[in-house]
């Protein structure tokens, strides 16, 4: 199990009650999402993507010790 930091932005930060960043011990991003959805059920109803160490991911990824996982709602800059 790896200790990772979880941060959130925009609407996702709002949905999680702005309680992130937090740390959690987990092995991969799928497991992390399952855990997050039990902690913050409202997350299941909004669209967001994951970035691991600032890189967007599109499928399950193993997590390294100390990784930063960001929960990113659809971008809407500019």
């Amino acid at each position, binding site marked *: 199990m790896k200790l990772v930091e979880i941060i959130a*932005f925009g*609407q996702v930060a709002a949905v999680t009650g702005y309680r992130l960043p937090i740390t959690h011990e987990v092995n991969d991003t799928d497991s992390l999402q399952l855990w997050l959805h039990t902690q913050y059920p409202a997350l299941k109803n909004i669209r967001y993507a994951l*970035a691991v160490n600032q890189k967007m991911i599109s499928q399950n990824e193993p997590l390294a010790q100390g990784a930063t996982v960001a929960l990113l*709602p659809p971008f809407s800059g*500019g």
Partner: protein
Amino acid sequence: MEKNIPIGDEIKKRQPKNIFVQGPVSATFVGDSIAKHASKTGIGGHSIFLGQVRADVIDGKTVAAIDYTTYEAMALEKMLEIREAIFAKYPLTCMHVYHSLGNVAAGQLCLFVFTSAAHRRQAIDACTELVERIKAELPVWGKEIFEDDSFVWKNSSPPDHPKE
């Protein structure tokens, strides 16, 4: 705005540059940026895109401002990647990008993208592609604030399908 001089000039160091400014981009700042290019006499054309906050009406309520936030470390790294790709693709003399953070009122400017090249097509094509990539790929979020202080999150392209 003088204290906020982010991404600069034609220098292409492999190091993220700040593109973010607090609050709106002023029209005066745009004019001053243009004026600074008079000494670069190899330039034949400048292309500029400016994003302005619209007073959209949503469910009967009018947007008074947009509040912008970002995942800054990721945004600046992504901007560096975009910047390098655009410089590699187009023979530009200069490229400048400024994006607002925090509160920007309706009618004010929130994005300033500025490219310069010897010939117009290079400057125009580079600017257009830059704007599209910035909108699609930079982790920035706008919260549309109504006149009664209620808000909605502004939604555009999904981040899990960034355009390349």
